[in-house]
């Protein structure tokens, strides 16, 4: 008995809410738009950054503790590299063809001096300063001498490739450098490289994991956009298949004027397109919320957009399918929506809770990435659920009214 009364109470609450949505769609839309505007403001504050794998392990592990001690007690353990290689495109011309070329060595020497003068750089280990060390502080005077000195010293050998077409300059970073300055550091190094005239046929790049992070950060946004676009296009086609294609075949089998048929087909598009609002608004709210709680998107959680779309669209589809079924029972638009929401909110909430349990379980693991992904997915599914029971039904009611009005007036005009 108690359980039944509880169930009835819950049903009454859902029914009251359904009445508000069905009878006051503009009011619901107004509230939704306020939240969209707030979310849009916070969306701009979401930051995108790549993630170091050591950051994923909890602090209580010895490997992480030791890393912390090294970072605290020693000079900056981070390194970056400059990679020099003979450009194969110039191989048939008169450009430099060997990294042991005196011209190349002189260039490396000048580059090393400029690098040593940079505030972020503690120490530079290049072919030129290593050769100077074993040659009484002087640069070798010929390619022959360079080759000799390289072959004698294992440490210097490790700075050039076996075929002498490549060389690396290892750079240790000073305490002035911190993780948030990776872009600035790479910019500085690139400016130094551009500023010094290099021998023709020699290609120079800044590399190493530190140099990779800014590049990856720049790629995160476009990558998310690309997967998100694919996701939304794919979902759009499935929606058209579900709501429009089947309807077209039914409409064309009916005995009606072509004009009426076209109006009906255009009308079915409202069912095909409205579910998309679930994911579009759900994503805006999710990212607005991420900005509000200052939770960034990392290289490994950047896939959430398309995942949220794939999961969240189900809520929109369920609302629209049920509304269409209710309309076929010849109910008024408002009554159809009240029935729809009363019947779909509870099952949708159950499936949303089950999904949230799965995501919550992910955050109970020790690896932070899995937890972060679970958290963002939870927010995404929750906001898509709310979008499916707010903006989607409100728009459905308004579009249905508009479509009804158009159908009556256009057909009337045609008959007149």
């Amino acid at each position: 008995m108690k359980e039944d009364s509880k169930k009835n109470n819950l049903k009454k609450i859902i029914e009251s809410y359904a009445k508000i949505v069905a009878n006051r769609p503009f009011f619901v839309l107004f509230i939704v738009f306020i939240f969209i505007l707030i979310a849009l403001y916070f969306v701009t504050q979401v930051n995108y950054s790549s993630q170091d794998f050591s950051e994923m392990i909890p602090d209580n592990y010895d490997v992480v503790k030791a890393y912390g001690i090294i970072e605290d007690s020693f000079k900056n353990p981070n390194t970056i590299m400059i990679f020099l290689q003979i450009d194969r495109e110039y191989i048939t011309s008169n450009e430099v063809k060997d990294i042991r070329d005196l011209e190349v060595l002189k260039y490396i020497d000048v580059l090393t001096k400029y690098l040593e003068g940079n505030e972020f750089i503690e120490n530079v280990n290049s072919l030129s300063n290593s050769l100077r060390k074993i040659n009484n502080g002087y640069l070798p005077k010929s390619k022959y001498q360079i080759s000799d000195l390289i072959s004698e010293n294992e440490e210097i050998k490790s700075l050039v490739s076996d075929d002498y077409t490549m060389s690396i300059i290892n750079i240790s970073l000073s305490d002035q450098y911190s993780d948030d300055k990776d872009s600035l550091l790479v910019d500085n190094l690139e400016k130094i490289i551009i500023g010094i005239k290099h021998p023709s046929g020699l290609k120079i790049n800044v590399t190493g994991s530190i140099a990779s992070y800014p590049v990856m950060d720049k790629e995160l946004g476009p990558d998310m956009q690309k997967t998100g676009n694919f996701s939304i296009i794919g979902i759009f086609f499935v929606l058209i298949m579900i709501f429009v294609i089947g309807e077209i075949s039914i409409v064309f089998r009916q005995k009606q004027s072509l004009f009426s048929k076209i109006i009906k087909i255009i009308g079915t598009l409202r069912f095909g397109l409205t579910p998309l609002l679930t994911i579009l608004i759900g994503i805006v709210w999710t990212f607005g919320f991420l900005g509000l709680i200052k939770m960034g998107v990392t290289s490994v959680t950047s896939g959430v957009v398309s995942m949220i779309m794939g999961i969240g669209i189900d809520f929109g589809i369920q609302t629209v399918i049920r509304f269409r079924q209710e309309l076929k029972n010849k109910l008024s638009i408002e009554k159809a929506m009240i029935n729809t929401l009363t019947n779909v909110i509870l099952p949708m909430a159950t499936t949303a809770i089950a999904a949230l349990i799965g995501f919550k379980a992910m955050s109970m693991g020790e690896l932070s990435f899995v937890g972060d992904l679970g958290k963002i997915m939870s927010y995404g599914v929750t906001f898509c659920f709310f979008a499916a029971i707010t903006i989607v039904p409100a728009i459905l009611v308004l579009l249905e009214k508009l479509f009804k009005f158009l159908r009556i007036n256009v057909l009337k005009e045609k008959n007149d």
Partner: protein
Amino acid sequence: MNFLKFIAKYQYKHKMLIFIIAVIITIILAIGVFRIEMETDFSKMNPTGLEIVELNDKITTEFGGTDIVIILFRFDNNYNFKNDNLDIRDPEIISYLKNLEIELNKESSVEGIISPATYISNFNPQSLSQVKYILSQYPELNSFFSKDFTTTLMYITADLSGDQEKTIAFTEMISEKLKFIPIPQGIEYFVTGSAPISVTILDILGKDAVKTIVIAAIIILLLLFITERSVLKGIVVFSPILLGVIWTIGTMGYLNIKLSVATVGIGAMILGLGVEYGVFMHTRYLEEKEKGLSQKESLENSVPAIGSAILGSGITTIIGFLALTLSIMPMLQDLGKTLALGIFFCLFIAVFISPVIIVLFEDLDKFILNKMYKRYNKKISQISKSDLQ
């Protein structure tokens, strides 16, 4: 629709056959679960198609491996030292580091070792002041020591190429060597660097995969017991999702898709996402039964109705996940592939196998109830007979 109706008829007619085939597939794929490997090569998780990543790979190929183990030595805070003036540059410690270097250098997997002892021991210092003098002559060696001279580092490099077994063997070898050479009293050590971090992540990956699946399974099962208001019905809804998880992870094992930091949570995700298909199918079947329809009729109504609805929502979910295969991040590509596979299996099981499980559990329930009823009747008749006697 007609196809799904045909499926429903077939399911009713050949329920035992379908069930046995499902069990056989599950057993085969369950074997695949044990074949799954962990991905610890972080370089394989880097984005594809970026020039800088390609350059980094080229450098690794041309200039040797970049797997590093760093051993940190420091004074143990819990040790009762007689002398307060502790200095890690002590010749005894330098000598210990040199011995450790010699021992480690015997191993073919070690490519290089650098520690303060690599240079300082060449001068064979006998006192701290001699070490200090050497350091004053070669100030760059100070970078091996912390600013307060209580900590020092040893770097060991190797080319493990992301090989799981090689990485574990390498870190174990270092631990063995550290135990083999007697360490000066009051000195403790920590091992870190890319290789030990890989091994730690490997360890956590396995634990996390099991932990997240178990937690999700228990909570979802409890939720189903509550929402279905019956343990048996909860199990009926839950068992197809469990099959979905086994099939997915088993297929990963056979297809050599490694468990990585990205895919470690897929079991929990599939459990959370796949449950809705089972819930919808079971609820609709019960609705049809409540109308007084037979098992066959209930199946013929519920499978086409729910089958078409969940196929629509399942396909959109699969598309969302497949979109990740276009990402430049290989680990997101793997995540997309495995999740799409998981949802596909859940859908397949919900439409083709779940109805069979529902009907068979119903039959089992009926059979048990009948047996209990017969036993009860038998007891009643025995009691009444004895009463009569």
